[in-house]
């Protein structure tokens, strides 16, 4: 059964906003070391918020691309394990255009969750 709103993403965003805007300034005054740790925590919550919102579609797209690239079915982990094996043994490399399109798309989705400002 689906949970009521707020969704995971909405609730995580509300927690992150509260910690960033209210708790962190108070901690910075009282205990700067904990203020720094709180910033790390807020940043991680922001990652989880984006993951809750974007992760499921990104994983599904990655799995579909991998299944097509490798010509077989499997879990995301099994397919990535097979791809990693082929890359280490040199069966595929960066001259494979389909491979590179797949990796570009996968990493673009990953960074959009982990750190969208990275350039």
């Amino acid at each position, binding site marked *: 059964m689906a949970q009521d709103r707020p969704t995971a993403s909405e609730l995580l965003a509300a927690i992150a906003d509260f910690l960033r805007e209210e708790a962190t300034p108070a901690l910075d005054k009282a205990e700067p070391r904990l203020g720094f740790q709180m910033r790390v925590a807020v940043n991680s919550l922001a990652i989880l918020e984006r993951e809750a919102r974007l992760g499921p579609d990104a994983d599904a797209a990655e799995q579909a691309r991998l299944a097509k690239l490798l010509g077989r079915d499997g879990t995301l982990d099994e397919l990535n394990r097979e791809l990693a094996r082929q890359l*280490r043994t040199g069966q595929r*490399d960066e001259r494979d255009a389909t491979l590179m399109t797949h*990796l570009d798309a996968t990493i673009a989705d990953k*960074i959009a969750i982990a750190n969208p400002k990275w350039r």
Partner: protein
Amino acid sequence: MTVHTSDEAENVASVLARAASRHFGGTATIEKLGRESGGASRQTWSFDAIVGDTRHELILRRDPPTLGAPRSKAESDRSVSIDRATEFRVLGAAFQAGVRAPEVLFELAPGDGLGEAYVMRRIGGTAIARKLLRDAPYEGARKKIAGQLGEILARIHAVPPGGLPPLVHREAADHIAGQRRALDLLDRPQPVFELALAWLDRRKPAPTAKPVLVHGDYRTGNYLADETGVTAILDWEGAHLGDPIEDLGWLCVKSWRFGAVDKPAGGFGSREELWQAYERAGGIKIDPARAHWWEVFGTVRWGIICHNQAWRHLSGAIKSMELASIGRRAVETEVDLLQLLKA
């Protein structure tokens, strides 16, 4: 990480008073003792030792004895660090050879009970990249740092091998094998790192004809600088023998630009500026393809270090939200690798 019990601080102060008295040949009084930074296993303490009319501003580097016990297999597999006694001798040899590095003074004896530890002179400046890259007092220094890093690195690579303690000799092939072993210890497959390592394997440079002292962690964040520029190179625990270009490539990894992405030399200048200063100071002529190879390798290395840092938390060795969160930074290097491999 300034938290310590006062009992611990009192014990450290009394040991330092005894050891400083021994070294300076007169009764030493310890003042202004405080923990600087670092984790539980590698501590840095700052203090003054007053001997007669002289105030010595000093730093204690220390691995506490409780953590000196044999490390778990997983952790020792991941560790490529030298011990404190070796670091003391490497720093001594570098200082002797005129490298801008802290002057090491004395080691603590096993009977002192502080674990592996030594004392060196304190040097002014900050290591905080964000300040050096953005704050007003460092505006003049910002123009100089890339060149200074090139000059100092040439000096490090010219340290006479005869004066060094025994160090591991690591060439490109050893580094690739080491990173693949590290990947095998992670529980998730890593296609982008596998792709990059295979790319590196096919293009790896021939072993160096004359291996030199490689600093091993030469980057922004690991040196002190003030308004005049670089004052001291720190964090020598990655020292080994190998290819001099390794240090130049590592310094240019995008993560060490701290946002100043258009300035590859640690966030302060161009690669060419760094290389010219290095060559002018006596370093070997830089082959840009070889430098690119080491920059790609450095990017892989930092990405896998991110996973290893997270693993220290995930394995239960150290409970740390901060270490756990570093795991999610590995993808930054995957972005960079896909760009670098197309270049």
